[in-house]
């Protein structure tokens, strides 16, 4: 276990950014989001969670992965996706880090998505425990420990006030720790006690939250029964069909592929798409999900049933962004409660 004093943080970031691209939670116009850091930026590591999830780092909103050209009437494809630069993300929360391990199950399963793989292997994730979990947090329902970052984490960190404790969890994490040797300090008994006290306090705060123990067991035994449940119609009535929930969600990963260009020259990109949109499944001959009820059902069935069946985990980390951002206060917690018979 190492530590970095808060007064040294600026120097830490400076040193990291000499070797890597560094993503930090930066505050702009009152919103905090992970963005590439430059000296003088307004860093905010106290905001519990960023407004948007950090999935854009490994799964960009738009990624051009193919260029096509026509040379002498011959078509020519060139693969241009992926990311070669090595980077570090500092201050990601355990739920968001865990979401990376969920996205891995999609993109790193055969056939492996090479562009994603490249981004993923080039990144080092420093995950900061949540000293002040909020009422919209329900990560513990999904087995994620806010006091002890593990999943998707290369280095676990804790803010104990004067300093930030630093514990490498992976080979990548150890390597980075080595590079930062002259800034990181050794810890003593004193810090270990502080850490235990912090973790204890986090656990106590979590226990006070309203949604810590959502009962997920009660749902999702029978896919068809769930699918045909009457609750979808009722729940989806207020749904506006926008894509906020899917775009702020750290685990939503559906994408579209589109071409841009003219006369057989241009590029192909993939971009975030939302199952909430009416054109998501629209084909030339029809649409299997014609109403918002069907699209709404798809989103939650995917997260709570289909993904579990296929990958053994839920496609939700309980970050609570959809809870805060939904314009009509509809969210996965309500769905879970309703499916469980309230």
């Amino acid at each position, binding site marked *: 276990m190492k530590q970095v004093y808060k007064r040294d943080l600026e120097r830490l970031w400076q040193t990291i950014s000499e070797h890597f691209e560094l993503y930090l939670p930066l505050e702009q116009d009152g919103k905090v989001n992970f963005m590439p850091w430059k000296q003088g930026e307004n860093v905010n590591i106290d905001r519990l969670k960023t407004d948007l999830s950090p999935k854009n780092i490994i799964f960009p909103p738009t990624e051009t992965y193919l260029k096509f*050209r*026509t040379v*002498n009437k011959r078509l020519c494809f060139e693969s241009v996706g992926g990311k070669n630069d090595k980077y570090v993300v500092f201050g990601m929360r355990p739920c968001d880090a865990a979401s990376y391990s969920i996205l891995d199950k999609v993109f790193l399963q055969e056939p492996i998505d090479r562009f994603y793989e490249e981004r993923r292997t080039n990144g080092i994730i420093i995950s900061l425990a949540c000293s002040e979990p909020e009422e919209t947090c329900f990560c513990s329902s999904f087995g994620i420990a806010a006091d002890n970052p593990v999943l998707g984490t290369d280095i676990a960190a804790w803010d104990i006030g004067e300093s930030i404790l630093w514990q490498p969890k992976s080979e990548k994490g150890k390597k980075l720790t080595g590079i930062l040797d002259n800034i990181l300090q050794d810890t003593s008994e004193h810090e270990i006690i502080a850490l235990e006290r912090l973790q204890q306090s986090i656990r106590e705060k979590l226990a006070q939250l309203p949604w810590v123990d959502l009962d997920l067991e009660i749902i999702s035994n029978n896919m068809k029964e769930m699918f045909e449940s009457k609750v979808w119609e009722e729940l989806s009535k207020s749904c506006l069909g926008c894509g906020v929930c899917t775009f702020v969600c750290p685990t939503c990963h559906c994408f579209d592929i589109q071409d*841009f*260009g*003219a*006369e057989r*020259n*241009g*590029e192909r990109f993939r971009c975030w798409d939302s199952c909430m949109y009416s054109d998501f499944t629209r084909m030339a001959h029809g649409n299997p999900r014609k109403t918002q009820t069907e699209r709404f059902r798809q989103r939650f069935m995917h997260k709570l049933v289909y993904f579990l069946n296929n990958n053994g985990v839920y496609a939700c980390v309980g970050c609570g962004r959809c809870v805060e951002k939904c314009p009509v206060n509809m969210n996965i917690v309500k769905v879970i409660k309703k499916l469980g018979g309230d």
Partner: protein
Amino acid sequence: MSLKLEEKAISSKQQFEPLIVAFCCNWCSYAGADLAGTSRLNYPANIKIIKVPCSCRVSPNFVLRAFQRGADGVIIAGCHPGDCHYSTGNYFTRRRFTLFANLLEYVGIEREKFKIEWISAAEGNKFATVMNEMLDSINKLGPSRKLRDGRWIRQQ
């Protein structure tokens, strides 16, 4: 050789060749353009005319799309108010694009880049003058990438 060059390369050249898209109403302004042609009046080859049934057929989408896909200036030319072939079309054009032109200016687009002109079928002269003036003012502004799609490659 159909290889297309990056537009950046074009704009970095000394010669800036603006592209102006002119939406011309079929009944007045397009005829005005015709007259300018048959009267052998010079108007620049940089003007690409798109014929529309009435100036009020032009949607703001068209204007923005033109800017995205390479236009340096967009002009909508219609009959003089009161002379619309469909009686009232250009009165609506006038209201719509008065607001739209203000909105474009509000988001930082130069007035010179988007214009409306009333040009009758008899005003071949005015057509040529307007187009020449438009080209002049765009030339003065110089190359700009406002509203342009960065991925767009202009054909050589």
